[in-house]
C-alpha cells in the first residue's frame, strides 16, 4: 500500500512550499532517527517517536512509550481519520483526503521553529558553569603554596642579619624540619645553619668537629693500610650519624661491624667471637703492654707482676691470723669498688695488707714499722733510729735494746767518739735489716728479693695490671648482682701469676648474641665495644 506525505515548508520569500513524497509499505516509522521513513529532524522528537500502521481497516499511529497530541489530546496512540491534527514534538501532521490509489495522505509542517532567543536560553543552561575557575584555582594553589613553602629559603638567603627576619626564619624553618633532632642537638633547632653550613652542600665534618673535639677515628689515619686505607677515605660523620631521625643518632647495628670484621671471622658474640685478649703489664717491663689471647695454644695466661700472693690461703673459710684473732676474709676485704662503681680501687699495701702484714723491725724494742717502699728508705730509717738511740736520745715509746751501747745523755763527745757511736749504730741497723729480710722474711712474703753483687738487697719491681681489657666498656656497676666468684674464679689459686679474668665462655653463660635468645641478654658488638674508641671506662 502507498501513502502520500506532503512536507510543508516556508520558502525564502515566505510562501508555503509543498513537497510530496509517496512511500510504499504497511509500517512506517516516524522520528528524528535517519532510519525513519518519515523523518522529523528536531531534537524534540524521539529517534523513533511513533509507528504508522496501515491495513484494511485504516491507519493507526502507535507512539508508546512516547506521547503524541491527537486533536489537542495527549495520547499514546490514535486511529487516524481525515481532518485529524496530530502533533509530534514541534511538527503538526494534518490528515488530508487521500488521492486515488493512496491509503493515507497527510501533510507535515514544522509549527514551532526554535527561536534564537530560545536556543540562547538553552545554551545558557548548558554553558552555565560555576564562577570558580579551575585554572585560576590552580595558579593560586601553585604559586601560593610555592611562595609559602619556599619562604624559609628566601628568608635564609636574604635576611639572616636582620633580627626580625631571623626570628621569622626560625619559625618558618620548622616547616622544613623533616624530623625531631637528637636530644643533644635540639638546641640548634633554632638555626639550621649550625650544622647545614652551606646551602646545597651536605653537612660537613667541620660543623660536627666544632663541638665534638677529640673524637678518635676508628682507624687512625697513620695506621690505615690496605683495605682500611680505602674504606675510610672521605667518610663524613653524617654518613653514619644521621640526625632528624628521632633521639638516637649513633647507629649500633651489628651489621655495620660485621661488614668489615666478618672477614676476620667475627660476626656475633654468641657464635663467632675470638677469645678475649688481655693487656698485661709485666713488673720487669712496666712501660710495655703485653697483649695475650686467653686460652691460646701456649697454655694459660700468666701475669708477671713480681708479687707473691695466695688467694686460697687468704680466703680460707676458717679465717686468717690477724693481730686481733682470726678473721675470715672476703673479696671485698681487699678489692673495693671505686667511685662510680665501674672500676676497682687498686689494692694497696698500706690499706689492705698492713693490718696483718706489719713491717715492724724489732718488735721487742718498738711498735714502729719501716716504711713500705724502696730498700734505701728502709735502711735510712733504721740507721737514723738506731743512731738516735745510741746517742742517748730514747723516745718514750721505745725500750732500748740491750745490744746497743748508749752514750749517757748530755755527755759531750769528741768527733772520734761520735764516729765510733755511729758505726755501732749502723752495724745494729744493718743487723736488723738482714734479720728482717733474711731471717724473718718480712719483705719476701710478698716480694721477690735478691742480693746484688755489691751485697745490696733488691726488691723486684711490681706492676699490677689495672685495665685487663682496656678497649671494653665493661663496668662492674652493672654486674653487682653477681658475686665476684662468678667471673673471677680464684678458688684453688695459690700463685700471683694466676689470671682470674673470665673467659668468653663465662660471659656467654649470660650474654647472647645480637639476636635475642631465651634466657640470655641480647648483646651486640656495641654492648662492649666503641666504634670511635677512646671513650671506654678503662682508658
Amino acid at each position, binding site marked *: 500500500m502507498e501513502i502520500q506525505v506532503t512536507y510543508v515548508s516556508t520558502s525564502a520569500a515566505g510562501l508555503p512550499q509543498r513537497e510530496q513524497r509517496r512511500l510504499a509499505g504497511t509500517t512506517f516509522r516516524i522520528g528524528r532517527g535517519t532510519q525513519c521513513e518519515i523523518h522529523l529532524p*528536531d*531534537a*524534540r*522528537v*524521539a*529517534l523513533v517517536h511513533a509507528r504508522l500502521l496501515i491495513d484494511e481497516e485504516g491507519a493507526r499511529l502507535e507512539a508508546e512509550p512516547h506521547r503524541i497530541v491527537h486533536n*489537542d489530546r*495527549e495520547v499514546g496512540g490514535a486511529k487516524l481519520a481525515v481532518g485529524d491534527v496530530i502533533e509530534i*514534538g*514541534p511538527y503538526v501532521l494534518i490528515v488530508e483526503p487521500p488521492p486515488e490509489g493512496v491509503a493515507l495522505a497527510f501533510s507535515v509542517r514544522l509549527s*514551532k521553529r526554535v527561536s534564537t532567543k*530560545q536556543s540562547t*536560553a*538553552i545554551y*545558557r*543552561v*548548558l554553558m*552555565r*558553569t*560555576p*564562577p*570558580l575557575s*579551575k*585554572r585560576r*584555582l*590552580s595558579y593560586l*594553589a*601553585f*604559586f*601560593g*603554596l*610555592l611562595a609559602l*613553602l*619556599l619562604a624559609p*629559603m628566601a628568608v*635564609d638567603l636574604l635576611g639572616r642579619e636582620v633580627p626580625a627576619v631571623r626570628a621569622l626564619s626560625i619559625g618558618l624553618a*620548622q*616547616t*622544613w*624540619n*623533616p*624530623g625531631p633532632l637528637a636530644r643533644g642537638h635540639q638546641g640548634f633547632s633554632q638555626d*639550621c645553619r649550625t650544622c*647545614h653550613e652551606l*646551602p*646545597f*652542600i651536605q*653537612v660537613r665534618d667541620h660543623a660536627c668537629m666544632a663541638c665534638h673535639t677529640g673524637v678518635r677515628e676508628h682507624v687512625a689515619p697513620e695506621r690505615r693500610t690496605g683495605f682500611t686505607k680505602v674504606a675510610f677515605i672521605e667518610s663524613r660523620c653524617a*654518613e*653514619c650519624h*644521621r640526625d632528624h*631521625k*628521632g633521639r638516637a*643518632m649513633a*647507629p649500633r*647495628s*651489628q*651489621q*655495620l661491624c660485621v*661488614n668489615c670484621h666478618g672477614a676476620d671471622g667475627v660476626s656475633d658474640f654468641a657464635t663467632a667471637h675470638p677469645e678475649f685478649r688481655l693487656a698485661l703489664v709485666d713488673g720487669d717491663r712496666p712501660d710495655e703492654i703485653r697483649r695475650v689471647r686467653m686460652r691460646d695454644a701456649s697454655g694459660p695466661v700468666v701475669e708477671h707482676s713480681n708479687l707473691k700472693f695466695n688467694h686460697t690461703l687468704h680466703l680460707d673459710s676458717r679465717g686468717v691470723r690477724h693481730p686481733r684473732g682470726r678473721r675470715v676474709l672476703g673479696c671485698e676485704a681487699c678489692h673495693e669498688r671505686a667511685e662510680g662503681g665501674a672500676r676497682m680501687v687498686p689494692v694497696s699495701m698500706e690499706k689492705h695488707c698492713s693490718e696483718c702484714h706489719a713491717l715492724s723491725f724489732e718488735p721487742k724494742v718498738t711498735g714502729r714499722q719501716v716504711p713500705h717502699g724502696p730498700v734505701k728508705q728502709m735502711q735510712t730509717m733504721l740507721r737514723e733510729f738506731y743512731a738516735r738511740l745510741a746517742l742517748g736520745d730514747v723516745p718514750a715509746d721505745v725500750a732500748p735494746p740491750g745490744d746497743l751501747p748508749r752514750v749517757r745523755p748530755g755527755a759531750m763527745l769528741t768527733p772520734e767518739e761520735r764516729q765510733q757511736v755511729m758505726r755501732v749504730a749502723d752495724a745494729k741497723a744493718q743487723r736488723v735489716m738482714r734479720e728482717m729480710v733474711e731471717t724473718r722474711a718480712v719483705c719476701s712474703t710478698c716480694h721477690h728479693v735478691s742480693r746484688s753483687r755489691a751485697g745490696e738487697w733488691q726488691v723486684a719491681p711490681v706492676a699490677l695490671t689495672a685495665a685487663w681489657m682496656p678497649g671494653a666498656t665493661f663496668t662492674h656497676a652493672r654486674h653487682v648482682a653477681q658475686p665476684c666468684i662468678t667471673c673471677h674464679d680464684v678458688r684453688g689459686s695459690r700463685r700471683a701469676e694466676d689470671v682470674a679474668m673470665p673467659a668468653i665462655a663465662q660471659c656467654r653463660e649470660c650474654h647472647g648474641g645480637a639476636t635475642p635468645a631465651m634466657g640470655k641478654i641480647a648483646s651486640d658488638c656495641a654492648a662492649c665495644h666503641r666504634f670511635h674508641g677512646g671513650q671506654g671506662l678503662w682508658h
Partner: protein
Amino acid sequence: MRVALVLCAAALAVYAWHEPPAVYVKPYGGTWLGYALGTLSALLVLWLLLLGVRKRRYRSRMGTVQGWTSAHVYLGASLLVLATLHSGFEFDWNVHTLAYVLMVLVIASGAVGVYAYLRYPALMTKNLGEDTLEGTLLTIGDLDRKCRRIALDLPDEVNAIVTRATRGSTREVRLGGSLWRQLAGDAVPCPTREACAELMRLGAAYSGQQAALNGQLVSAMTRKSTLVDRVRRDLRYRALMQFWLYAHVPLSFALLAALIAHVISVFYFW
C-alpha cells in the same frame, strides 16, 4: 596498566628485599632506594601533570589521549605505592608530609573521577534515554508556551501561577546554576512542582469547560515537571563528572608546588 603493576610490584619487592643500610636508624628517603623511589615518583608526578598538556595538543601523535588517560589512571594509582615507600612511613608536620598528603588527596580525587566516569555516563543514558538535553529543553519551552496559552482562558489566579512557573523557563525553573545547585539536582524547591500542586488544589473547585482546561494545564505542567526533573538529574550527573576536577586540578598544582619545595628543602639543607 601493565607498566604500573610491574612498577608497583618491583617497588614493593625491592623495598621488602632492601634492608636499609644499617647506618640508618630506620628507612627513609635518604637511602639509595629512597632516592631512587623519590626520583621516580617525582618524574611520575611531572608526567601525570603532562596529561593536561597532551589532551590539548590535538595534533600530537604521541600516543592517543585515551592511552594517556588510561596510563594516567594506573600510574597515578601506582604513585601511591611508590611515594609511600619513599616516605619510609615517616610522617610529621612539615613540608614533606604536606607534599605526601596533597599527593594522596590528588589521587583520591582522581579515584572519585574514575568512579564518576564509570558510573554516570550509564545513568545519564538511562535518565534521558534517546532524548538529548537540548531536545528536552526545547520541549520544556514548548510546554511553557502551551501552558500560558491555556491559562489565558482561566481565572487570574491560575494565570498568575502559570506565569510565575513558566517565566523565562530555563532561568526561572532554576536549571543549571552554581556548582552546588547543579550537584543538588532535583532536591531544590521547584516552581513547576509547586505550580502543579497549586493548580490541582484550585482545579477541584472548577467545573465544565474550566475544569477541562485546567485538566489540560495540569497534564502539561506535570509533563513539564517530569522533564525538568530529568534535566536536573542530567545536569547533576554532568556536574558530578566535573566537580572532582575542581579538586583534582588545583590540588595537582598545589602538589607540584609542595614537591618543588620538598626537593629544594631536602637539598638546600642537605
